[in-house]
């Protein structure tokens, strides 16, 4: 009898333990990286610390009651869908997981400062095909993920911006001398990222190219260096950042399309969209956007700082 009792209480205890673990996870915040503490900027970017200190904060009047931004401020943290493994754009340092740096993620921190006053963000890394789902079901408030504005996507969600203009370019293995650009890709094996504009752009430009797709950018780079394809077509900034950190690949030719990045927003929320666009105007005007660019993407390439794009200039934005 006592053995049954003991066994029963063990089972009950373990059930209770699991239940409490699950309930604590139900509290919501265990999904991604923890919120960045206010004194963030661990990796030695004092230049950006200054930018954060001077970053604009929204007037209380701009946060209409019952609006998305008021809810975010109430919550105290901005939920962002951003990568953890994109060099110069949004990269997590595993030995210091709270420290995520890059162009996309720094802009997200500034948006958080604008709404809440502190760069409190919670990062949820999306798989490339789930960004729209994460916005429509409310898991994240915004998407900062080199998210190209397309009309198809604009049918499902809203975009603010564009906040950067880039284009698709071609990368090849560092020792490849045959391919100089998109025109040389006829009949070749071309690697593209799943659910990126390259999936449709490459067949359009080179119908005879064989297209192979992989889920994430690091996988595509890996496949290219291992010879699973002759070239990798992806957004120019991503390729430049990859080539910077990986000697095995190089970018050839110029961007052959024009892709505009936008901030992904939940659909049917014009107030939030106007709010975010206002913020973009402010950081374009006061130089913070340029400062963030110089500290991240500006470290590769020719060192010149581009002009921020005009908001709403792209169909779908």
């Amino acid at each position, binding site marked *: 009898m006592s053995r049954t009792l003991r066994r029963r209480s063990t089972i009950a205890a373990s059930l209770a333990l699991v239940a409490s673990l699950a309930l604590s996870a139900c509290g919501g915040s265990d999904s*991604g990286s923890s919120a960045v503490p206010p004194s963030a900027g661990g990796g030695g970017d004092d230049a950006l610390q200054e930018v954060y200190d001077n970053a604009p904060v929204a007037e209380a009047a701009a946060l209409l009651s019952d609006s998305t931004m008021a809810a975010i401020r109430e919550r105290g943290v901005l939920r962002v869908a951003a990568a953890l493994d994109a060099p110069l754009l949004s990269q997590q340092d*595993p030995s210091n997981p709270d420290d995520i740096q890059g162009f996309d993620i720094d802009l997200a921190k500034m948006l958080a400062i604008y709404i809440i006053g502190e760069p409190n963000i919670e990062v949820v890394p999306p798989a490339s095909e789930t960004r729209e789902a994460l916005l429509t079901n409310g898991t994240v408030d915004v998407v900062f993920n080199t998210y190209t504005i397309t009309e198809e996507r604009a049918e499902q969600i809203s975009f603010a911006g564009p906040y950067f203009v880039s284009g698709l370019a071609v990368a090849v293995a560092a020792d490849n001398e045959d391919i100089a650009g998109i025109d040389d890709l006829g009949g070749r094996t071309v690697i593209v990222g799943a659910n990126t504009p390259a999936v449709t752009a490459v067949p359009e430009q080179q119908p005879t190219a064989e297209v192979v797709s992989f889920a994430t950018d690091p996988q595509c780079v890996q496949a290219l260096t291992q010879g699973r394809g002759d070239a990798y077509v992806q957004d120019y900034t991503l390729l430049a950042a990859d080539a910077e950190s990986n000697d095995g690949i190089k970018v050839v030719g110029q961007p052959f399309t024009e892709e505009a990045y936008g901030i992904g927003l939940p659909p049917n929320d014009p107030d939030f969209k106007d709010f975010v666009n206002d913020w973009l105007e402010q950081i374009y005007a006061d130089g913070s956007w340029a400062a963030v660019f110089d500290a991240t993407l500006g470290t590769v390439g020719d060192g010149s700082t581009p002009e921020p794009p005009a908001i709403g200039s792209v169909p779908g934005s």
Partner: protein
Amino acid sequence: MRQPETAHLYDEPGPRGRRRIRIASVVSVLVFAGVVALMLRQFASRGQLDADRWTPFLSWPIWEYLLVGLRGTLLAAAVVAVLGGALGVLLALGRLSPIRPLRWLCTGFIEVFRTLPVLLLIYLMLFGLPAYGINLPVLWKLVVPLTIANAAAFAEIVRAGVLSLPRGQTEAGYSLGMRRLQVMRAVVLPQALRAVTPSLVVQLVSLLKDTSLGYVVAFTELLYRAQVLSAYNRLLIQTFIVVTLVYLVVNGLLSALASRLRRRTTRTAAPIAPATPAQPGAPAVEAPRV
């Protein structure tokens, strides 16, 4: 020396047999060693065995990063195990029920979800549920599809256990005046569950491995953290080998723990041996028929 369980297949080897076995052993060892040496040489020739590729894994921050992922894996696995197990038992009982609509419903549920790939279920819920306004926290985006798939598997295992019991057990219960559900709860289920514990453990291990699909829903678990880490430090082989070893250890411990628990709670203490005739006064539970 303990005999392997299939030793009865052949006669005790005589001197010639023993010599042949010894030769075969030596040859096998040489072959295996040769294959391993070839692989190591291949790896070394590309610099994959260099110390500086492996020493990052001696640093605590990397392990802390991976262990947080492991915690996510274990948490998801535990939740799925409890919920899926409970649901599985209910489904099994439903499938064995005399009430026909209930039986059909449960049978349909089990047969459908046993033959759908888990990845497909995850995609279906990820993209389909928001259309109905259902927004789940990230943990539950992984747990719900896994629970449904594993509940169907658990249900079949439990049902096999229930069906393997001798009919006398249920009849004895009825003859004591118990109702059907009482018989199930007090007599049949405990014995059935004990009988199928090995299969349950196998399913548990499979479930833990399924949590690696958490990357699709952006749930922080071990394999996703390994991917991020490998993208950062570009040490793909080393990272994936280390993480594979972690899974091996965790699942191995799980299986070992489960078999130890099983040995302690099974009433027949005899190890697996040729069937001996039942002694008078022996307990009602025999060693389970597999």
